[in-house]
């Protein structure tokens, strides 16, 4: 163990409370400082924020389609985006840890007054007229209106009918309407209005059959709403933020209502901003792909599609997870530098282009391979019932909280993750049970063996754990790990021996005792889950036999008991 390095607990402080991983949109909007404060702006996320902010500041409405898998952080993204675009307390921007973003946009956005309509489509029922997208938008605009504007602004067809009655109907039309109410309800329109809600009154006016301009086309209706809100409320634009669009998409796909929904979105993201020059920003988050009709390749062209945790931004995941689970102690940057120098000297992974010093610092104290494995495991969430992307935060948090790890002087490695309760529970699922039993039986062999020293046993556990997780993270195409990679992934460090040699020695010995561990010089080592899934008894018996043979006390007592 390198003695010059500080213990991890002197460099990092684990977050005192378990990080929240499923933020709820409305709840998150109600806690601005907490929501923005724990949001990590990776380079790629900053670019997306900047794009949306630029559109808002330049008053060029635009649609953005945010696509990401389940648990990838869409809701947190939307809540942070909404708050930064619409919250007017200066202090909120202090919570933004990205200094460049803060400097560039704080002042400009503080001058902007956008009217926010933020909602999730989760939980609406199917086959219901109320579930039409236009109705959902109307309902949410009404909910978002400040109390002083509620009675002044007409949003729905019923509202427009009442407005027509109050402001536009001529005497002849009113007489016709009076006749309708008398015939249908035996009362005057005024009497009906006193007894029923505004909505019911409007609905009844519409039943009269008179010609009323209800602004039935989506474009007319939204334009009418926009004009009223911006003029009466003093806003200089509108912001629509829609979460969980996939759930609506799934309910309506292949039906006329789906086409209608696309038209609604096209109106908001294209026709009104581009052709009518209205400053409407629409951000839709979905697990699903943007419908072809709504795709736009550039600014001013329907929806611009952006992905969270996309493959091309591989470092995002590790940076976000690390940020959420720990803080770096004040003045500890120099200590991290020492770890970096030590690792660079001992191992090759820091010399590879993808592990820059910045990334090493951003994910400290995790060995980068940890996030490769967690990402693969959580990406197969739907296929294998494993925890989703957000579970990586729990796995990292639970691992980092282990006291012996914090007292240690090495980076957290892949095998350490197996101590997380969240991961352990995921691995007991049917899809993994056989492999997990196989892994456990391999550990039992090591634990009961007298051939390994305590230090070697510790390293052997790390090797087995790493190879096992590597195998199940990529079940279809897990390649063997060359010794150098294995030494790095396990942070093997034995005084006087090179990491590669130490691993070679141990892997060779493990291979002799544990059939799951396979090694050849050309490809490296791997854990063969399939090979070891059957024949549990045959695999376990030798270890149990050895253990029993070594336990002379119990042998003696068994003899005595027999007599």
């Amino acid at each position, binding site marked *: 163990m390198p003695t010059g390095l500080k213990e991890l607990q002197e460099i990092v402080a684990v977050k005192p409370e378990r990080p*929240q*991983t*499923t*933020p*709820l*949109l*409305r*709840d998150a909007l109600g806690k601005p400082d907490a929501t923005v404060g724990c949001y990590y702006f990776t380079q790629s996320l900053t670019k997306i924020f900047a794009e949306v902010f630029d559109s808002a500041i330049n008053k060029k409405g635009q649609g953005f389609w945010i696509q990401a898998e389940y*648990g990838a952080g869409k809701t947190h993204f939307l809540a942070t985006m909404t708050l930064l675009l619409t919250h007017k307390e200066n202090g909120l921007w202090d919570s933004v840890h990205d200094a460049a973003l803060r400097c560039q946009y704080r002042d400009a956005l503080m001058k902007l007054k956008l009217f926010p309509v933020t909602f*999730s489509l*989760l*939980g*609406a*029922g*199917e*086959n*219901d007229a*109320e*579930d039409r997208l236009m109705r959902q938008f109307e309902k949410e605009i009404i909910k978002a209106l400040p109390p002083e504007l509620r009675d002044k602004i007409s949003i729905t067809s019923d509202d427009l009918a009442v407005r027509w009655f109050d402001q536009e109907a001529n005497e002849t039309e009113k007489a016709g309407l009076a006749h309708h109410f008398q015939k249908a309800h035996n009362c005057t329109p005024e009497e009906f209005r006193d007894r029923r*809600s505004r*909505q*019911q009154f409007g609905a009844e006016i519409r039943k009269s059959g008179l010609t009323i301009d209800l602004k039935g086309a989506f474009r007319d209706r939204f334009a009418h709403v926009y004009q009223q809100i911006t003029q009466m409320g003093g806003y200089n634009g509108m912001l629509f933020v829609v979460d*969980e669009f996939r*759930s609506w998409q799934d*309910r309506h796909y292949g039906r006329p209502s789906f086409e209608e929904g696309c038209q609604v979105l096209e109106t908001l993201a294209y026709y009104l901003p581009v052709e009518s020059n209205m400053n409407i920003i629409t951000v839709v988050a979905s697990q699903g792909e943007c419908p072809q009709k709504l795709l736009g390749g550039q600014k001013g062209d329907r929806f611009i599609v952006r992905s969270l945790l996309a493959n091309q931004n591989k470092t995002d995941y590790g940076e976000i997870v690390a940020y959420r689970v720990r803080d770096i102690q004040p003045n500890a940057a120099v200590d991290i530098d020492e770890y970096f120098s030590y690792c660079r000297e001992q191992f090759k992974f820091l010399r590879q282009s993808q592990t820059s010093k910045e990334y090493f610092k951003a994910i400290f104290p995790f060995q980068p391979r940890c996030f490769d494995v967690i990402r693969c495991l959580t990406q197969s969430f739907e296929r294998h019932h494993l925890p*989703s992307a*957000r*579970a990586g935060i*729990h796995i990292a948090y639970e691992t980092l909280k282990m006291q012996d790890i914090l007292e240690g002087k090495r980076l957290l490695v892949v095998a350490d993750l197996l101590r997380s*309760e*969240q991961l352990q*529970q995921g691995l007991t*699922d*049917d899809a993994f049970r056989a492999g997990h039993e196989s892994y456990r039986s391999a550990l039992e062999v090591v634990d009961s063996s007298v051939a390994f020293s305590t230090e070697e046993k510790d390293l052997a556990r790390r090797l087995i754990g790493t190879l096992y997780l590597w195998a199940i993270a990529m079940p279809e195409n897990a390649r063997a790990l060359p010794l150098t990679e294995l030494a790095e992934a396990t942070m093997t460090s034995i005084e006087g021996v090179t990491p590669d040699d130490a691993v070679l020695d141990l892997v060779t010995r493990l291979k002799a005792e544990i059939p799951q561990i396979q090694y050849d010089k050309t490809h490296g080592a791997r854990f063969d889950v399939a090979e070891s899934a059957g024949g549990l008894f045959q695999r376990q018996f030798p270890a149990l036999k050895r253990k029993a043979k070594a336990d002379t006390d119990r042998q003696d007592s068994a003899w005595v008991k027999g007599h």
Partner: protein
Amino acid sequence: MKVSLSDVVKKPYWSKDICVWIGTETGVLKATEGERNVSLDLLDLFTPGEDVPADDMGRTQLIELRLDSKLQELRRDLPERRVLILKNAALLARYRVGLGPIYDWFGGDKKMAVLVLTSQADFRLPLHLNRDVKCDCEATVDYLTSCLANQKLVFRERQ
């Protein structure tokens, strides 16, 4: 392997786990045993004799409004891990109220909800009505299922 309600309840962290339980209240209490819960009867959102809107649309809006505000209050008052047991959930189907407020306030890491429905499987129409009236015993379940983010989270109590 089919997941049971107990399996969902035992998850260390929940995520949008809103379930439907078709069976008795005793059954749901047994399935959620070991986890702290809070019960809410939808009928308790109204006082007996209260003047409610005459039309369905008005009632739908009122239920949604009251449910939203009650769940928000429960979430605020009970910050720790909790299972919400929602009784008389059939009322939501009757008035086509969506589950939005339940996802909004009980869909996070520390909160989940179980909507309890009494089984209608044994219900039989009187013979003399059979020709004129069709009874769809699954309509309530179907509606609530259609509102779920994960439609596998519908559990029937074993008899």
